[in-house]
């Protein structure tokens, strides 16, 4: 059982929805992104998604892309991102950390070496945007074998015929992408998303977490209400981009998590 599985079991026991928050590692610099990360559990974040910067984030909108550029300009690397997790684990051994990014930096390191290093750093799960089920042999299967969760994305184009393929080898939770589009796009509509979530729920016992287009305390409440939880990324990254102090960023995060936890 990973920290992710344990967290969802605990939330379920309390009857609470999950709030998942994303930041880009190293944005705007290593010190500040670490401070935000460290403050997240107290701000009500149940699962931390730590973005691994990549030069060519083809599924992300401008907000995340610019965050990645800021991080890379500041010298962020895959190793430094793992180091952030190692540092975080010194004071927090329960909050799950999911790495989210693209395959090339991992491929470049070598899958075997990466999995050893990621586990040593206390990473619990992986979301790799450009690895669909068709490429499971690359990383998904080795990661599961190493005891790490491989979190699958399901989207509005994942039809009934395809859904079983997406759910095979899925673990941790299912990340439902609320819209066809990129991160930071139009606001997700709970009434539109609900039937989709139910469709997936009928086929799996894994928690369904909805992301893309979730940006305010109102939407975190509405979206978490029709699923097992929700993810906010771009809206938090925007606060970082605007240069807000850490305390303000975390109080915004708190307002989002309060929304989700009210659901």
């Amino acid at each position, binding site marked *: 059982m990973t920290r992710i599985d344990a967290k969802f079991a605990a939330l379920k026991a309390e009857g609470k929805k999950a709030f998942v928050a994303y930041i880009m590692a190293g944005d705007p610099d290593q010190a500040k992104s670490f401070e935000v990360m460290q403050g997240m559990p107290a701000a009500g974040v149940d699962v931390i998604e730590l973005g691994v910067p990549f030069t*060519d984030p083809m*599924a992300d909108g401008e907000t995340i892309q610019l965050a990645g550029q800021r991080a890379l300009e500041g010298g962020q690397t*895959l190793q430094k991102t793992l180091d952030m997790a190692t540092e975080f684990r010194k004071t927090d051994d329960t909050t799950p950390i999911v790495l989210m990014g*693209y395959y*090339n930096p991992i491929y470049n390191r070598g899958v075997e070496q990466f999995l050893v290093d990621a586990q040593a750093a206390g990473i619990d799960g992986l979301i790799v945007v450009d690895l669909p089920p*068709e490429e499971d042999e690359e990383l998904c299967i080795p990661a599961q074998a190493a005891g790490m969760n491989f979190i699958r994305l399901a989207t509005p184009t994942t039809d009934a015929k395809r859904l079983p393929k997406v759910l095979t080898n899925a673990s941790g939770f299912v990340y439902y992408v609320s819209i066809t*589009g990129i991160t930071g796009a139009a606001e997700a509509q709970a009434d539109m998303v609900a039937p989709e979530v139910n469709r997936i729920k009928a086929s799996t016992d894994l928690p369904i977490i909805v992301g893309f287009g979730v940006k305010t305390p109102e939407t975190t409440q509405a979206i978490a209400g029709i699923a097992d939880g929700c993810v906010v990324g771009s809206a938090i990254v925007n606060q970082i981009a605007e240069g807000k102090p850490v305390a303000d960023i975390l109080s915004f995060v708190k307002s989002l998590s309060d929304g989700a936890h009210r659901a």
Partner: protein
Amino acid sequence: MNNLFNSFMTGPDEKGRFGKFGGRFVSETLMPLILSLEEEYERAKTDDSFWDEMNDLWTHYVGRPSPLYYANRLTEHLGGAKIYLKRDELNHTGAHKINNVLGQIILARRMGKTRIIAETGAGQHGVATATVCAKFGLKCVVYMGAHDVERQAPNVFRMRLLGAEVVAVTSGRGTLKDAMNDALRDWVTNVRDTFYCIGTVAGPHPYPAMVRDFQSIIGKEVREQLAEQEGEGRLPDTLIAAIGGGSNAMGLFYPFLDDKSVRMIGVEAGGKGVNDKMEHCASLTGGRPGVLHGNLTYLLQDDDGQILEGYSISAGLDYPGIGPEHSWLHDIGRAEYVSITDKEALEAFQLSCSTEGIIPALEPSHALAHVMKIAPDLPADHIIVMNMCGRGDKDIFTVAKYLGVEINAGG
């Protein structure tokens, strides 16, 4: 052991791999789209009506077959191998790009798609796509790096004349790879009505195989034309083509892959020299395997797996990756890959103008520069076929600048 002939032409496998290269590294949203494209392409491939339509347009709209021309003065000048030029620069829109675009647009129409998107570097693929979209009355959006929009202004104007919307991409560094990122972002957003027309033998399966198949008309024609001119059964000894993503080279090479006597050389853009300052775009000579834009292939990247920008005087070769089938042919040694610098390409450009009266694009000028290197040492009965894949009208401003000549586009 079996003694069956081991064919090089059977790739990719059912997972879209050429050896370990290729694959389908796309987000889940796009996965159903590329699966349905694959399905439609497999159907079309064996459908006579599809090829009838292609052949009709190739003949009457594009002007195929393009001539295979014996370059006698160039041959004399270099004093060695006999040099033929495959004249794909004479195609409608001035390059080989339209061979592939026609195929993809006919597929898009069969799939009921009404909106076409494309990425472009130098603008040749964008112009070809805008052209075919105009012909069929389809909406066309072309993504082009802001930097390229600036240095390829005539092609931007052509695309707009043809009714396309040209989007200047400023994300990332505003180059061809960023244009491809933005095209993918568009596709992931407009999944129902949009067809992504990729301009080279790269991207997720089935694009590398599909684009290769459409471009293979080049090599098929060369085989027939050379037999006509040199006698039945005479094969070329050496094939040479320039490589950015590698579609014109794949189109020339593919029909000859199983003819073991035929040597194949792909010429990458060496820019200012293949060095660790990355002032080149020689992915095979100066890169290593990685994953970008849907496929596993050789890439220019740093120690952390971040993608680097290439550099070349030729905007059409300025891409940090290469088609996965080339990566495979490179690794198994079936084709050779070399690089040519800006300076060498510019010398070849001028030689083509003065000896053959052909103003070549900067891309095939790279191929010609390699011909200049090897032809003199080869015997007179050695036949080289080089793909003259594009004409140089678009490049005269770049060349003039290099030669220190001021020309005024306004005339």
